[in-house]
């Protein structure tokens, strides 16, 4: 549709927006519907050659030797790389630099890359890769959480907290024991959330091109060009100024292209070795091995509930999570904290304890998928609350509405909540679905379920510690009237380019056609950390806002002087700069820029964004803080066939508090896409593994690394969706905007599980929900047993000493009272790992303070 423009109503143009909040065609829309968008695999260069990776066929083994003799004979083969050629380790997190571009001496899962082959054609590269013979010495395989906890040896990684435990955390906010003791009733549940993968339609691809001065340019399908740039610099051992990373438009990301990957580093190394452009495009099978998807998580939730009349409140909650991390760290440390971090931002929770453990297993590494670590505990929490409502005989909507967290407060775990539209979200989906009238009253086989969620608008801290901006934008304006916008953000389909352009166009009162974007190029664009943690609209938007306002200021000064109009009366709209009091008096935007260029010389402005500091100061407080939180609520209606257990979503009502829509039609796309992906996770999607029969090595392999067998919803599976866009503008966001890319996924899985219970009275405490699970529950019900399908128990885990963090209500200062100098901390952890009492901890802290003073003296 034509870009909407309406005459501003002077004298208050600031109150009016000509673009923001109205539907407009995304700036990359034409390229995407004409097939001209260049994805990484669409690039071709003269003399370009192809690389294939030889991946491990065994899940855990030492590499005894590699035989290239047959492979080398293949016509067209140009060279090979092995781990020795790229020995420097890398990884997305500074604390887990555990990956190698090619395995050095050991493989850790089926699909771990061992050798890279380059050839003049892709066919020749394939053939040579098949002919490389790797001799393995098998090691015992660890296939899951319990096995990893019970099997410290052999260690899959030679680092981590202990054995095959990668990371273990324990944090107690406030007096949880006291809270549970004060409860009228204590509820406890165990849940399991199976792993699943992103399945972006575009398979990862990278093209590396060597250039003069020993430089190399790497074009890749990555969500995080800046972090890839850092990994390439580390592994290749050449200065960052000699490496240029360009993130091509991603054919879907969902978190799956947020890590620096083996193939990206191999392509760059091979290009520098051969002195020719090198392309590698992964097969779909390889994409399943790259993975970094949803962690399988086992959870135990214990909640104290107080009931005064119809008013129900949470007195305290204890959450334990165990994650199956796969063979490498990836984002896993952050993922572990995220399984606990956001439990507190939706409902009042005066005391909270979180204990999490991430294990290493011989499977492709898990990492961040849409919702990163939070959908699993959110599923548990919202089903848990549904059970509580049913047990107490309270409407699940009233239960939630009665315990909502307050806006502009700080939670027990020190997260600062800004605007909070959850009340309006719940009322919208409850009203729209007729939940109050229909819940619990539908015929057998029909049911309604309600659930909520909340998500970050960008992680408060960068992945590596620094004091630089998390997002930067540069503008270049000149006499042409064109505004060139430079920013490191990566377009992965979510519409980040359109947000960037719209913010600048809005401030300068020009049309999208007057803007030229240059994005995601580490040589040409200021750093933006990338498209992850739903950070782009808020962070890039704020940086763009600052840069555009600075440009507007310069132009306004020049026009004000030239036309003798007070600067505060100037309006930027309709590609003009004019007098609010006399709209006919003004200049075209181009002439206004000419005036500014004449007055100030060559025009350029910059904008930066750094999130506000979080009040949390304890170890682990870095995960969870965000400038703002989005909120979502959903009601799902399902139909279940009690004879077969087959179920289908009939209708989804979803409301999302997006703060302010930059472009409502694109916001709807993100909401509907999140609903779809959530339905996929609860209906069918699972990244699961099986052991081959003994005579076939007994290896642990991916059950179905193909699009055919990894089921995902089609056009036929997607139910009608009623989408309510709730706007609670947040002062932290550009024009009040918050995130929308991930939050709306969160309520879907639990809403479905709750609806299935409403339909047939069966609790399925795990995801995905398969028909046989419902049948098992119905059979149990028929035999008078609890109508439930799910994990039986949470494993016994010694979480060691817990961090004791007083809450804001307790007058805490955001620090832990038992976390200080490492020496003393290790000294005070009892061998049994039993936790200290608060009194003991305070005593030790005083002692520590004393010894510190003595040292100081």
């Amino acid at each position, binding site marked *: 549709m034509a870009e909407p423009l309406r005459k501003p109503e002077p004298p208050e143009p600031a109150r009016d927006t000509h673009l923001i909040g109205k539907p407009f065609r995304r700036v990359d829309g034409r390229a995407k519907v004409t097939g001209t968008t260049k994805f990484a695999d669409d690039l071709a260069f003269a003399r370009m050659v192809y690389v294939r990776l030889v991946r491990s066929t065994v899940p855990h083994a030492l590499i005894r030797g590699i035989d290239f003799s047959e492979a080398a004979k293949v016509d067209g083969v140009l060279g090979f790389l092995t781990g020795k050629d790229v020995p420097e380790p890398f990884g997305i997190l500074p604390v887990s630099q555990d990956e190698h571009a090619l395995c050095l001496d050991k493989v850790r899962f089926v699909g771990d890359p061992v050798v890279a082959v380059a050839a003049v054609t892709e066919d020749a590269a394939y053939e040579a890769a098949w002919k490389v013979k790797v001799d393995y010495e098998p090691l015992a395989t660890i296939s899951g959480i319990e096995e990893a906890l019970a099997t410290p040896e052999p260690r899959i990684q030679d680092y981590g907290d202990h054995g095959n435990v990668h990371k273990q955390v324990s944090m107690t906010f406030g007096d949880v024991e006291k809270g549970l003791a004060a409860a009228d009733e204590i509820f406890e549940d165990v849940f399991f959330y199976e792993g699943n993968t992103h399945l972006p339609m575009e398979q990862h691809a990278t093209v590396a091109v060597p250039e003069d001065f020993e430089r190399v340019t790497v074009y890749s399908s990555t969500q995080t060009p800046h972090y890839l740039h850092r990994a390439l610099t580390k592994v290749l051992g050449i200065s960052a100024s000699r490496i240029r990373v360009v993130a091509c438009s991603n054919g879907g990301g969902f978190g799956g292209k947020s890590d620096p990957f083996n193939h990206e580093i191999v392509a760059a190394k091979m290009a520098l070795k051969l002195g020719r452009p090198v392309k590698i495009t992964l097969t779909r099978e390889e994409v399943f091995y790259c993975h970094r998807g949803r962690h399988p998580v086992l959870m135990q939730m214990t909640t104290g509930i107080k009931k005064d009349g119809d008013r129900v409140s949470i007195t305290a909650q204890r959450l334990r999570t165990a994650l199956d991390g796969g063979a490498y760290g990836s984002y896993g440390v952050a993922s572990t904290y995220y399984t606990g971090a956001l439990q507190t931002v939706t409902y009042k929770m005066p005391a909270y304890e979180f204990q999490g453990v991430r294990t290493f297993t011989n499977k492709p590494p898990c990492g961040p998928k849409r919702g990163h670590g939070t959908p699993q505990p959110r599923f548990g929490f919202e089903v848990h609350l549904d059970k509580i409502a049913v047990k107490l005989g309270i409407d699940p909507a009233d239960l939630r509405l009665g315990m909502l967290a307050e806006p502009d407060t700080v939670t027990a775990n020190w997260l600062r909540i800004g605007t909070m539209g959850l009340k309006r979200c719940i009322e919208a989906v409850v009203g729209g679905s007729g939940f109050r009238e229909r819940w619990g009253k539908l015929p057998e086989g029909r049911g309604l379920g309600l659930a909520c969620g909340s998500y970050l608008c960008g992680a408060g801290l960068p992945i590596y510690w620094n004091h630089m901006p998390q997002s930067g934008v540069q503008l270049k304006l000149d006499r042409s009237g064109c505004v060139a916008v430079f920013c490191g953000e990566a377009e992965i389909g979510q519409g980040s380019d359109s947000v960037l352009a719209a913010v600048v166009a809005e401030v300068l009162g020009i049309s999208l056609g007057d803007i030229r974007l240059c994005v995601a190029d580490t040589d040409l664009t200021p750093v933006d950390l990338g498209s992850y943690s739903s950070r782009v609209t808020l962070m890039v938007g704020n940086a763009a806002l600052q840069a555009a306002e600075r440009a507007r200021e310069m132009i306004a000064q020049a026009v004000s002087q030239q036309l003798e109009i007070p600067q505060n009366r100037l309006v930027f709209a309709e590609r003009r700069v004019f007098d609010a009091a006399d709209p006919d008096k003004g200049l075209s935007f181009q002439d206004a820029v000419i005036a500014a260029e004449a007055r100030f010389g060559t025009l350029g402005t910059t904008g930066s964004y750094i999130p506000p500091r979080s009040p949390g100061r304890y170890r682990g407080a870095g995960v969870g803080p965000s400038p703002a939180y989005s909120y979502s609520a959903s009601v799902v209606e399902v139909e279940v066939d009690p004879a077969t257990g087959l179920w289908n979503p009939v209708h989804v009502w979803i409301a999302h508090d997006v703060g302010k829509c930059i472009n409502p039609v694109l916001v709807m796309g993100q909401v509907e*896409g999140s609903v779809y992906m959530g339905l996929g996770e609860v209906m069918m999607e699972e990244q699961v593994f099986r052991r081959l029969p003994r005579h076939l090595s007994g290896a642990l392999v991916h059950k179905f690394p193909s699009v055919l067998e990894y089921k995902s919803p*089609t056009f036929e599976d997607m139910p009608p969706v009623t989408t309510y866009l709730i706007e609670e503008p947040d002062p932290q966001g550009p024009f009040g905007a918050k995130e929308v890319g991930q939050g709306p996924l969160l309520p879907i899985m639990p809403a479905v599980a709750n609806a299935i219970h409403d339909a047939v009275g069966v609790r399925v405490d795990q995801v995905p929900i398969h028909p046989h699970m419902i049948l098992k529950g119905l059979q149990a019900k028929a035999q008078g047993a609890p109508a439930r399908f799910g994990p039986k128990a949470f494993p016994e885990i010694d979480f060691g000493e817990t961090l004791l963090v007083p809450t804001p209500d307790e007058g805490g200062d955001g620090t832990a009272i038992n976390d200080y100098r490492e020496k003393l901390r290790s000294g005070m952890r009892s061998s049994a790992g039993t936790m200290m009492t608060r009194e003991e901890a305070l005593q030790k802290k005083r002692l520590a303070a004393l010894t510190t003073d003595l040292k100081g003296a």
Partner: protein
Amino acid sequence: MNDDVTFLKLRINGEPRAVVFPAHHTLLEVLREECGLTGTKHGCELGECGTCTVLVDGRPVLSCLVLAAEVAGRAIETVEGMQDGNDLHPLQATFADLGAAQCGYCTPGILMTAKALLAENPRPTEAEIRAALAGTLCRCTGYHKIIQGVEWAAARIRGENWTPPDEVFYGDRLPEEAEP
């Protein structure tokens, strides 16, 4: 590895193309590599995702499952051939305006499939659209904006002056309870 090479004259988007390629290469490979028509994508290598769909004699075909040698002399249509001069095809325009193309990777295949649908059924019901497109996967949109884009384009092609209701652009109207 089979080293046989085929020489063929293909007719792509109405234009003659003389191509030389390894005999075992699929239409998908020949379009992308020999012809440089990279608008057609690949997503699964086994005919499951629909991303590589092109039209052969007007019918949707999975180009990853067809040998280029099989379609000599047939009329091949790809997304590059949809535009009329510089004007977008109605399907392209409505997809762009509704954000029916998010990452845009599955879009060419879906556009070609939808074009074939509208050619034989100018007034498809929602169910008919879902059925026709069920062979193509999209991970971004949740499919709704695509279905609405096809409905809108169908109306335009029929010459009707119809645009989708506001709810399609702004979200559904809030029930009374939600009014602040």
